[in-house]
């Protein structure tokens, strides 16, 4: 059936040399777009891909929901007396964990994407070099925001009451998304270096599990052995959670916020430039 359809349209519309000759001279030849316009165009591509593959959004809705429900009810009674009590402590942490976990799809997506011919075309365009990757991250930011909203909504329904109010929650999500954007460059680099999607997934999981679990997400590290506390203290996720927790509870902790901002800048600069070197060398 499909064959018949495409054949008939082929026959009806076989291109003629004249028709093609007539459209060869474009009426206008604008200058190449600037860095922002090019990135925005790639961001639009990411949105179009969501439109055609809505199943991509499953990761950012169902996964965070399961994480929130699971840990609230698994640990709540034992650790804090009740799930509701525990949720006040856990929610910012599980928010950070879920969003940081889904940043890995950046690398998986890039790895799948770059193997196809379309990236050859993008890389031969006279545009700002990082635009294709930055634009894809714009799409990712949307996914991070969606995941955040799902978790906060689920938390509120389960009894989470942030002391920082709407402003605190917005600031917390803002801080998290900023860090996630910066952290995504690690996955971009990995996506370019690794041979296939499976490899990217494996390495990402290997990094993400200790990074999110060996932290202050689930329990206060005070009762842990000293060496483990030392490890937890150098984990950037610990500081991110501390910062997000502080702004969402309304007692903002400038020291932790600064650490997150600096870590984000360093990640973007270091992994962004390593990624672009790799992108140009391929």
């Amino acid at each position, binding site marked *: 059936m499909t064959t018949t359809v495409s054949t008939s349209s*082929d026959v009806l*519309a*076989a291109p003629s040399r004249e028709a*093609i000759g007539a459209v060869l001279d474009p009426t206008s030849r604008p200058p190449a777009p600037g860095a922002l316009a090019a990135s925005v165009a790639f961001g639009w*591509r990411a949105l179009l891909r969501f439109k055609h593959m809505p199943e991509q959004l499953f990761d950012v809705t169902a996964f965070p929901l399961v994480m929130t429900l699971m840990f609230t009810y698994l640990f709540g009674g034992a650790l804090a007396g009740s799930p509701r009590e525990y949720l006040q402590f856990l929610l910012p942490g599980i928010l950070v964990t879920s969003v940081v976990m889904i940043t890995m799809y950046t690398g998986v997506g890039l790895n799948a994407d770059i193997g196809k011919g379309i990236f050859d*075309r993008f890389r031969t365009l*006279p*545009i700002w070099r990082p635009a294709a990757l930055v634009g894809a991250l714009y799409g990712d930011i949307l996914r991070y925001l969606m995941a955040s909203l799902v978790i906060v909504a689920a938390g509120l329904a389960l009894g989470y009451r942030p002391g920082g109010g709407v402003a605190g929650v917005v600031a917390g999500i803002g801080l998290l998304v900023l860090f996630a954007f910066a952290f995504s460059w690690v996955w971009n680099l990995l996506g370019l270096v690794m041979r296939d999607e499976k490899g990217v997934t494996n390495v990402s999981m290997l990094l993400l599990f200790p990074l999110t679990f060996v932290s202050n997400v689930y329990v206060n590290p005070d009762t842990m052995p000293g060496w483990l506390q030392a490890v937890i203290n150098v984990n950037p996720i610990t500081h991110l959670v501390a910062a997000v927790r502080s702004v969402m509870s309304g007692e903002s902790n400038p020291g932790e916020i600064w650490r997150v901002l600096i870590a984000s800048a360093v990640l973007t600069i270091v992994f962004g430039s390593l990624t672009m070197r790799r992108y140009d060398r391929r």
Partner: protein
Amino acid sequence: MDEASQGLAIETSGLVKTFGNTRAVDGLDLRIPKGAVYGILGPNGAGKTTAVRMLATLLRPDAGQATVLGYDIVREAQQVRGKLSLTGQYASVDETLTGMENLVLLGRLLGHRRAEARKRADQLLAAFGLTEAAGRQVKKYSGGMRRRLDIAASILNTPEVLFLDEPTTGLDPRSRSQVWEIVRAVVAYGTTVLLTTQYLDEADRLAARIAVIDHGRVIAEGTPGELKSAVGGGTVHLRLRDPGQRAQAETVVSRVLGDVIEDDGDKAALRARVGADADVGADAGCDPAAVEEAGSQAAAERAAHTLSELARAGIAVDAFSLGQPSLDEVFLALTDRPVTRATDARSHQEVPA
């Protein structure tokens, strides 16, 4: 840029690209004139795609240099990108998006505003016979439609240099001839087209000049006519009415044309090359001047002569044809060995060239 380089679209000297132990491109020298189709002919694994990817700034050469319209492909990569478009061997379009979305996206990436990009996309889709399929995802396109969309994307801002990497590989005959029409239109506009292909007939139909490459080097270069006369007039295929007369027929054919190339299994079918190392080759020891003389006219005459000799010997022939030399025959004539398959490429590496 010296005076001799003025009329050149692309110039490479000693271009090298190595992957692991394989020298995919091994000292490539090309001088590609402006405003025509230049064919790069070679088998799988000859280095065609690697060469194109270097020229299109997608790969960095390990040694040697190249310019596209006077710009160095490494130091002035961004200027080179402003001059070229690439239609890769694998569709350089986003299969998830529709045809329309692909062209609008590209239009915006080339600096058009959204409305303009849409208008240009509509124009191109109509000219390429894709209006009906505009709203369909590219992954649902046929191979020919995908290739047309790909080329449409490449000429959205009609480039000065267009790279087409095996544009017709895997296409059905009608889609192939559609791609040829598109290429002719683009060249008529003044664009220089660099076309890689595995098919001699394709290079012959489209290209003003052809470079034959093997193991990453140019092994022959010239106009299609020059190449064909170097290779010989082609191949005579004939079908005997009585396979029992095969031995007799072989004697006659090899007396007139030279060696008979065996056909596998089919006793009634005979195949013989006309030209290079037939008459001339066998006697004159492959003297290049003599080979040059053996043009296609001579080939036709000799083929006709074969036919009449067979008739005189009382051998009935059911079918007879004189075909263009195939890529295999080009290779056989130029390298004295058949087309190297990709699997052989590695073993060849150990043999110093």
